[in-house]
């Protein structure tokens, strides 16, 4: 049999169907200039659940995440194709107001990004941008957000100290409080614990589990134990494609695709 084997069209292995997704990426492509980084990603993000995106370095996890709030538009030469529906509206459509979009979709980065201002002002930052609150309402919102980020007790007497004076883990929780203060529907986390110590990491993981009662979390992580501990759904990325998407418990115990198994057992990546 010398007939060349024809490559089958690529198909993501899926073992869950997400009902009423908050975000639904459909045939999402992405380019950095001439080089394509994402290939026809289809991914549904379930409401009030934690969806983890895992995969080896350079597989497109962060790239995929950065489409959701259109932050990639900050850079020349980066563009996305396909559709990403947020409540049924294509957020990549030219008419989308990216400022309003970013109020609804908060983002936490790998390194904590406290702004050069006081702890109070850090948390108030987004509130001031998007709402016109009275001083009292603002103070209430800041306290509420810091409590939700499990930081209030540590900083309630330091509110006027610079945000940069906190430890790395506290800074990351400050950034989470700052995002929560905008009352977002979705929180994107791009390897939020890779720059902080294990104890602080545990606190943030605990926090993520609490947060999913009120919002949807999408977390990119290098740490497979972390994905297993905190996520409900997991998407495994490889070379810009989504290889497998399914319930986390199933994927980590009984992956369907051989590549997924190789990755989670540490054979590559």
């Amino acid at each position, binding site marked *: 049999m010398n007939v060349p084997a024809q490559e089958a069209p690529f198909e993501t292995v899926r073992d869950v169907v997400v009902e009423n997704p908050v975000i639904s990426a459909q045939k999402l492509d992405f380019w950095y200039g001439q080089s394509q980084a994402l290939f026809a990603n289809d991914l549904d993000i379930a409401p009030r659940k934690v969806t983890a995106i895992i995969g080896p370095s350079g597989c497109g996890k962060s790239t995929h995440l950065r489409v959701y709030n259109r932050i990639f538009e900050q850079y020349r030469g980066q563009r996305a194709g396909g559709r990403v529906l947020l409540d049924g509206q294509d957020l990549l459509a030219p008419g989308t107001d990216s400022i309003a979009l970013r109020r609804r979709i908060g983002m936490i*980065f790998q390194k904590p990004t406290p702004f050069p201002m006081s702890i109070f002002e850090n948390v108030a930052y987004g509130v001031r941008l998007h709402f016109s609150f009275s001083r009292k309402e603002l103070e209430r919102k800041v306290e509420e957000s810091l409590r939700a980020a499990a930081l209030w007790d540590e900083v309630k007497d330091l509110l006027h100290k610079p945000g940069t004076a906190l430890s790395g883990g506290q800074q990351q929780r400050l950034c989470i409080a700052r995002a929560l203060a905008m009352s977002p529907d979705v929180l994107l986390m791009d390897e939020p614990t890779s720059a902080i110590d294990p104890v602080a990491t545990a606190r943030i993981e605990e926090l993520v589990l609490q947060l999913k009662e009120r919002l949807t979390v999408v977390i990119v992580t290098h740490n497979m134990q972390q994905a297993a501990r905190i996520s409900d759904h997991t998407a495994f990325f490889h070379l810009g494609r989504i290889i497998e998407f399914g319930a986390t418990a199933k994927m980590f115990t009984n992956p369907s695709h051989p590549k997924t198994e190789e990755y989670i057992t540490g054979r590559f990546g």
Partner: protein
Amino acid sequence: MTPRRLADLWKAQTSFRKSSAFHRHVDRAFRYLTLACAATTLLLVGAILWNLIEHAWPSITKFGLGFVTSSQWNPVKSQYGAASSIYGTLVSTAIALILALPISLAIALFLTSYAPPWLAKIVGTCVELLAAIPSIIYGMWGLFVFAPYMQKTVQPMLAKLPGPLFDGAPLGVGMLTAGIILALMILPFLTAVMRDVFAMTPPVLMESAAGMGSTSWEVTRKISIPYGLRGLIGATFLGLGRAIGETMAVTFVIGNSHRISTSLFAPGNTIASTLANEFNEADSPLLEAALIELGLILFVITLIIQILAHLWLKNLQKRQAR
């Protein structure tokens, strides 16, 4: 690894230890050398101060504090006062900073945040070229091209504004023209330093602010400027230091008159321009001493500004520890 090679390794290590005594000596000698060089600068500052005081002494004893408060400058009666020069120095520098600061801030922001890279490169290079133009060129251009333009076009327009600042005859040369020329001179320098300060804002910080729905102007105002504030203040004081002692360009266009006037159109002088104008003709020992005392005052003003800048930065650092 064989025992033989381990022994070799051990030998190599011990021989290194022997030679480390030599290294320690070199190290110490180098430390003293750097110390000596650093001490030289201190010594120089002290020597300059001492020399200035010594040579200014006849004037200091003769006029006392009156030297600073009087604007009399009369070689015939041997009456000398520094007030107009001090006033002119401060006012021309203030005009220069008021004009140059916002413009350089805007150029630096444009270059770092808004311009496409190819344009930023071209404009950036031009800015650096401008910074390298000798001050006498600015002075000559100011006198032959800019002052007539001021006289014919700008000053008649400004004269229509109310208030005493723009009263009097449009002479072309004067305090305002000198301030504008100074602004042009420090502009490229300020821009270059500020651009470097803004380029230091971590991209992830700006991305984070943009990710919260800030417009680029909000990112600039609330993130980039506060983040680089210390550097920006440092840049400002460097520019101020250049403007305050600038001699040639100012001497060409300030009009050189020992008078204090509320009008910015009026000719005036600065410490540096007075020195440049009169030093050649200083035939009496008292005039020479008075001129040197002017130099001493400039030295002290610069020193005070340096100290204030230092204190300000320190205070800022305390409030905004990072």
